């Protein structure tokens, strides 16, 4: 590294690196930036084609599930990848959203359009209640608290039979409807799910490229530094936790009105853990991670339809391989390859 000549203007600094980067350090490269809004729109427009090219309605129902999973996995990605907290209980928030919306529909005859915001709000509130004590704990213990919380929720889903239908599930949930037009077939549900998932992804994008988004990432990477610039770390952590839970609640509400049914098994701790796996495989902290994770989460069980016992094995192996070989996940693959090739060219 050459010594630049000292300048006379008082604010410049001689740019001498007093320390050469350690071996194996990546060469100077741009940090991954969230994509532009146009890129998001383009990708979603491609997805819009699905009902037209789908071979049958079942395929469309898979696409519907994938869109719901995108919202769910994006909510956890926001928390894990940008907020730096690992929730082992996100399926619980998913379930809370589903049951709130479903029960309001079954017991009070409330329209799904009212159930959706109700689910988001109540899930957010639950996250606030559990988050205030839990976020004072260090990462690992926060995760275990979310796990415990999920387990308690499942016990409640199972035991409050009068309300939730217990282990047999909640039946008779009404679908979304536009007046008399009910969105009760796969093809009819697709546009709504497409729209909601687009709006959610757009909101996340807006958040990430904003002051609040930067504050979030600052607290996740370096709390001391965040404190020093005036960011209230605790409030920020609570905020992203509540927001993430609310998003999961939205996914839950969509789920219950699309399937017109919910059962406690879907929202187990094991599924929460699987969601963490999907975030990691998709690429934690990468904008497109959730889309890739949702694709895998939805497609793999279909591909392994006759070998469903191997499904779990595959996910477990993928998780291990990703963490060891490709910690930035699939979404980080292009950047990782670029660096690998760039590095090779330099030497």
């Amino acid at each position, binding site marked *: 590294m050459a010594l630049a000549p000292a300048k006379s203007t008082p604010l410049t600094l001689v740019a001498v690196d007093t320390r050469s980067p350690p071996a194996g350090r990546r060469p100077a490269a741009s940090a991954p930036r969230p994509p532009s809004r146009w890129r998001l729109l383009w990708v979603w427009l491609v997805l819009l084609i699905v009902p037209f090219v789908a071979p049958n309605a079942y395929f469309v129902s898979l696409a519907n599930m994938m869109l719901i999973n995108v919202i769910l996995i994006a909510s956890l990605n926001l928390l894990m990848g940008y907020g730096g907290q690992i929730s082992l209980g996100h399926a619980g928030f998913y379930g809370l959203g589903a049951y709130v919306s479903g029960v309001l529909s079954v017991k009070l005859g409330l329209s799904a359009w009212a159930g959706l915001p109700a689910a988001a709000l109540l899930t957010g509130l639950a996250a606030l209640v559990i988050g205030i*004590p839990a976020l004072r*704990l260090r*990462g690992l213990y926060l995760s*275990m*608290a979310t796990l415990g919380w999920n387990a308690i929720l499942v*016990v409640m889903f199972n035991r409050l039979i009068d309300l939730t239908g217990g282990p047999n599930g909640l039946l008779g949930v009404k679908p979304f409807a536009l007046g008399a037009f009910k969105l009760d077939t796969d093809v009819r549900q697709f546009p709504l799910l497409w729209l909601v998932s687009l709006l959610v992804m757009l909101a996340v994008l807006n958040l990430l490229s904003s002051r609040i988004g930067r504050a979030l990432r600052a607290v996740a990477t370096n709390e001391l530094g965040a404190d020093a610039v005036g960011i209230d770390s605790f409030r920020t952590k609570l905020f992203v936790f509540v927001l993430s839970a609310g998003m999961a609640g939205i996914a839950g509400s969509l789920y219950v009105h699309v399937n017109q049914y919910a059962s406690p098994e879907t929202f187990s701790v094991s599924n929460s853990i699987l969601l963490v*796996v999907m975030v990691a495989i998709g690429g934690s902290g990468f904008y497109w991670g959730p889309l890739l994770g949702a694709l895998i989460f939805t497609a793999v069980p279909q591909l392994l339809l006759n070998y469903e016992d*191997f499904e779990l094995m595959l996910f477990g192996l993928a*998780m291990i391989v990703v963490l*060891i070989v490709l910690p930035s996940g699939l979404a980080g693959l292009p950047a990782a390859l670029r660096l690998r090739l760039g590095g090779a060219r330099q030497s």
Partner: protein
Amino acid sequence: MVTSILQLLVAGIGTGSIYALIALGFNVVFKSTGAMNFAQGEWVVMGGMISAMLFGAFSNIGLACLVTVLIVTIVGILSERLVIWPLRRPTPLMITLVSIGLGICTRSLVMLVLGKQPVGYPGFSQAATLTWGGVSVQTQTLWIVGLTAAFLLVTHLFFERSIMGKALRAAAADREAAAIVGVRVETTVLLSFSIAAFAGALAGAIITPLTLSSYDQGAMFGFKGFSAAMLGGIGSLPGAVVGGLALGLLEAFGSFYISSDFKDAIAFAVLLLILFVRPSGFLGRADVVKV
């Protein structure tokens, strides 16, 4: 009335010993890596299921359990070498995450190879129960308590007296300082995984005659063992014993006096209570847990 209390006491100490073993496994790995090992519960399941399989082959329960524990310890060693050791940045977070993958793989392997049917085998003694002064006790429970106590004693001596044990404690206390004085930190991590697998397998092998063993119990064992570890103070080896026994007794008395439906919920409630009220548990250090 007194007899039922005594019976609950015995039952509580019995399950408590199992939880203590599993908690020990968690604590040992936690001490040397700072991470939560999600495969711990699966090793317990392996202990039970492989013992059942070998019992079919050897017809000698003691031999089957012994060989099983050795096999699962080797599995623990292999797990560490294949999954933990290759990590470029073995931070507690990364190790925890990779152990999630490991736990999932271990569980599916068990399911694929050993099947989904629950399995069991008779207890170690000929007589299944012992009655003493009106109190009926499962002989297997006595075996559990005895073997657990023996294992804890050996572990205690190992950590206090042997060079390897002290090296492990040193590396757990301060990785860099230990490395400077010549302790091979990677080896201590390997050792801690082996001990954890051994403890887990032992727990599984000795509890199976009472509860049967099936591939999907891993999560529950792991979770309860972790709750016990937190209760006693995460990272504290004597804490594992205190926490395990406390949880076992809480479950035994709780399910009798409150409701047996919610027995499993007791462990969750205990965990949350500990985390929110006294994260350091009985014997742990507060600075470990709070931000």
